[in-house]
């Protein structure tokens, strides 16, 4: 089985994020890491090929600027076999529609049976790329999976969202996103880190994918930092804290 895992490099979630004057995230100013939701997708891929039948491979696919290589190396050191890195200056400022088009084109160039994604990138927090990629490839969409089982050419998942829990299946190839309770991601071993240095990352430009530059279909009009919050009331509980809490809720007409 040939699995593609879509991974994104994002600003470290511990860092304060800032907007640049162009209305885009100022990526230069913060540490960048592999989107932690994507580690669950990588782990799922690795577990699905654990037995390693002949021809089983896991390929990471990522679109992003040059330094995305760091996130890709992390995936390789976890055990992913190889990677495709789509890097092109014309992609700066891409929206989800452009990103999904590029990713779908890259997937079409391989012969994949399965595409695994994280449920959400922690910077955009859109959670739409897996659905868009599925729509573009016209492959079944099985997203928010907390369980994945493959039997012959059928893939079964348990979808866990706020609406409830659904069990569903489809024929491969399919696009699957996983939630974080699926598996605990492994840490790269020393051996894995050394091995990752020798693995191949195929660099691709837009024209390598047969695409031309695309405009974003959304425009940021203004972006304003939140004014610092006026300090609230802080009391030390002297036995009346509970009463004061109830009084506060009443005063604000919350109860």
């Amino acid at each position, binding site marked *: 089985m040939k699995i593609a895992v879509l991974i994104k490099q994002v600003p470290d979630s511990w860092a304060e994020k800032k907007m640049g004057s162009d209305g885009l995230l100022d990526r230069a100013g913060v540490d960048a890491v592999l989107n932690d939701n994507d580690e669950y997708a990588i782990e799922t891929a690795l577990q699905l090929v654990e037995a390693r039948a002949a021809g089983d491979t896991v390929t990471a696919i990522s679109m992003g600027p040059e330094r995305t290589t760091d996130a890709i190396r992390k995936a390789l050191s976890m055990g992913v076999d190889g990677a495709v890195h789509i890097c092109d200056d014309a992609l700066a400022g891409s929206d989800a529609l452009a990103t999904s088009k590029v990713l779908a084109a890259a997937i079409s160039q391989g012969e994949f049976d399965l595409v695994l994604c994280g449920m959400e990138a922690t910077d955009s*927090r859109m959670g*739409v790329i897996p659905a868009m990629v599925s729509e573009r490839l016209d492959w079944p969409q099985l997203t928010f999976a907390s369980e994945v089982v493959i039997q012959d050419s059928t893939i079964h998942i348990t979808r866990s969202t706020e609406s409830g829990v659904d069990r569903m299946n489809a024929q491969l190839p399919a696009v699957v996103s996983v939630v974080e*309770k699926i598996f605990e991601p492994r840490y790269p071993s020393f051996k894995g880190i050394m091995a990752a240095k020798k693995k191949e990352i195929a660099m691709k430009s837009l024209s390598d994918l047969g695409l031309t530059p695309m405009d974003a279909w*959304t425009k940021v009009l203004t972006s304003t930092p939140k004014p610092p919050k006026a300090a609230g009331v802080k009391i030390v509980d002297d036995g009346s804290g509970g009463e004061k809490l109830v009084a506060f809720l009443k005063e604000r007409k919350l109860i």
Partner: protein
Amino acid sequence: MSQIFILLEGDELSSAGAELAIFGSRAGSVTAVICSNNPEALVASAATLPVERVIVLTGIDFAKSSLRSVSSVLAELVKRDSPAALLVASSARGKEIAARVAVRTESGIVTDAIDVNAALEATQSIFGGSYTVSSRVTHGTSIVTMRSHCVEVTTTTSSPAVEYFDGAGYVDTQVTITSSEPAQKSARPSLAEASIVVSGGRGTDGKFELIEEFADLIGAAVGASRPVIDSGWYPHAYQVGQTGKTVSPQCYIACGISGAIQHKAGMQTAKTIIAINKDPEAPFFEIADFGIVGDLFTVLQSAIAALK
């Protein structure tokens, strides 16, 4: 006047669905597309909202067919009527439906908006509430997914024209749903719908009885921080934060939660924030409108007594 589509799903009107009608009516004449196996209740509810037309989808068993069925018909209707905007609730499902419609109709998309004005400029609160961004779609229909609790719903009387659209030809055959358990309807409101959320963190040591009792007395939902979930003290569906749910209630009450950036990412847009923590230096106090330095169990116990 421009046409605004909204998507209503389920067996009854949700607060999120009602809000879509209010937002939509600011920008034009609202058409509610209704996807339900029992559409009568939603059709009746639409007549209490500023809705001028409803399109009831028929020919699809919504309990058994994947969200691709809905996105395919919706895309067809958008192509047919070219509305100025399509507003959908910002749930995982809503965002995925909207995403697929965006691809099919070559339209731009904005997700998790907290406001949208008459010019279809959408407001988002990003990076855990540290920035407010206004943006608009520049191509195709403006597809915007809206968070709930962002606008007050005042009911009116309207008499929407009712149309039916046969969706049988759009039923998804790629995905088979073998079983479906809707999220349990408990007496307690859900995290998405509640106007008050009471959350417990590691400081609860897994003891949620007082949190639940207090929440029930004030009609609140219960939430939790990640260590609570990781320790198996509370089910995953209740986790608030970057890797859990994002909530924006009227009021968020954090009990024994330190206020890490990843937790705040899921609740910082709450209108009023209350923190109870025994550590006076806990970062939560920096964003709290009302902070109580003290033991959460003592404070909750006396609050419960005061309410009774």
